[in-house]
């Protein structure tokens, strides 16, 4: 088993800081990267439940690789409507999940960190 690179360890620390107070689970992906799950993330009144987990893979190719896609627990819309185009139901890490596919265009590895993108995804979902 390869241990995560310094870039990944640093990214995980930044995620913990970004979501201070939330439990953050980190498991090796077997190829030098990690799976990260942030618990009890607030996504607002538009969804039931209004709080869920947010998961993603930081691969061994980070920071050259984007963080994509992101996953949350199964959600329904409070207004009963359907999810938008970038959201689909899948199985992730052996559990039911919604996959959120938001790529970073013109991504800069020095700016688009795993932590900032996770927060952007949370906010994007809350604004839907």
């Amino acid at each position: 088993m390869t241990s995560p690179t310094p870039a990944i360890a640093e990214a995980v620390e930044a995620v913990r800081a970004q979501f201070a107070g939330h439990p953050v689970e980190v498991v090796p992906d077997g190829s030098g990267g990690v799976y990260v799950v942030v618990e009890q993330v607030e996504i607002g009144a538009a969804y039931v439940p209004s709080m869920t987990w947010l998961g993603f893979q930081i691969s061994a190719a980070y920071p050259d690789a984007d963080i994509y896609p992101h996953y949350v627990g199964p959600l329904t819309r409070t207004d009963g409507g359907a999810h938008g185009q970038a959201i689909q139901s899948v199985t992730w890490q052996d559990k039911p999940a919604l996959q959120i596919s938001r790529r970073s265009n013109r991504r800069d590895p020095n700016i688009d960190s795993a932590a900032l993108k996770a927060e952007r995804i949370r906010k994007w979902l809350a604004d839907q």
Partner: protein
Amino acid sequence: MARRPVNPPATGWSLTIPPKIWDRLSDHVLGSAARGAVLLAGLADGPRGPRLLARELILADEGRDYIPGEFGHRALAPTFVRDAVIRARDEGLAYIAAHAHLGLDHVGFSEIDLASHERGYPSLSQISGQVVGALVITDHAAAGDLWLPDGRREELAETIIPTGNLLRLRSQPAEEGRPDSLHDRQARLLGDLGQETLRRLRVAVVGLGGVGSILVEELARLGVGELVLIDDETVEETNLPRLVASGREDIGRLKTEVAARNARRANPDVRLIEIARRVERPESLEELVRCDWIFLAADGDAARHWVNGTVQQYLVPATQVGVKVPLTPQGDVGQIHTATRLVLPGSGCLWCSRLIDPTRLAVDMHPAGERDAAQYVPGVPAPSVITLNTLAAGEAVNHFVFAVVGLHDEENDHASVIHRPRTRQRDLQEPRQDPTCRWCTSTGRLGLGRKGSTPF
């Protein structure tokens, strides 16, 4: 200019210098005035011994840094040496002082050179805790005197510059190669030393499908001594029309197994390393970084990223071979092209050429079970035809053979070749480089070797 001697790979310590760094070094020290420079270099294990990987060049300014020496001759100024050796210590890199001598095919240190090494290097080695040493070059030859941290002293067996013709410089030209009756006809072009060069090389083929199976067949028949075969897939029925020397009985077998059988049939003496893994797996990367050349014949952004990383961090040249058949959902065929891209250390990389997409790379790094669902454009099988693969594979192997035996006309020709068979055009494409690239520049991972860890 006289043709440089063809030197087969030598066993022992080697120094690899990226082409752009070599150009600046040789311009500086081979000019009319006697001038010096220091190379800072990473370290890696190689196929035939430890490898020093030049990462950065510090030129000594004439008059200020390179001054009349206390013991005759000219020498690097003490402050220049101190600054460079402290950087070597802080960055964990080898310190190698370089200068030039007059001459052509032979070079060696003078008595004065050796006396100055003996006076200075034990303490430089103590300060830096790294390999320290000296390199002396002519245009056609190089010799090195290395002082290791454990007190041992080693000669440099060869200095390698992976440019248009891959240069292997020694202190004197290799002895005439032994005749090889099996390869008599091709050795008439490549020379006995050229044939010997192929026999001593360790070459990887990443991706053993349509293009890769042709590469393996040709490399083995040419007499390349050792092949590292990397692919995690098994043969499917729809592969058969493009897999060289395959049959129905191969369906379900690993592509590494089929490629190994074909290689052995082509050359019973070939040494084979079969790795039925994806290229980003540590087991694959460990083998890849100890090769002399890599052929990248796998689709996918992960393969491109990791091979590119190997080229830049471990200074192993590579050729990327690909075929693109644009097809609209309505069935309209666009401009088909085959690409044979030379990826050289420090000369612009696959990231600089925008041939890797960060999001596709993220998806490609997912485990197989999650990859399809994560795809932002659903995958459909791309068209693939053996004749198009042959065009690209032939170009790639031919370039490699000419490079390693020094048959290219232009030393600094680093261009990639794009074939457009529909219009029968053939174009050359120069690599481009982003001066802040994280991979192919001295501010990035260029030449870091083991220090940058594997995987990187």
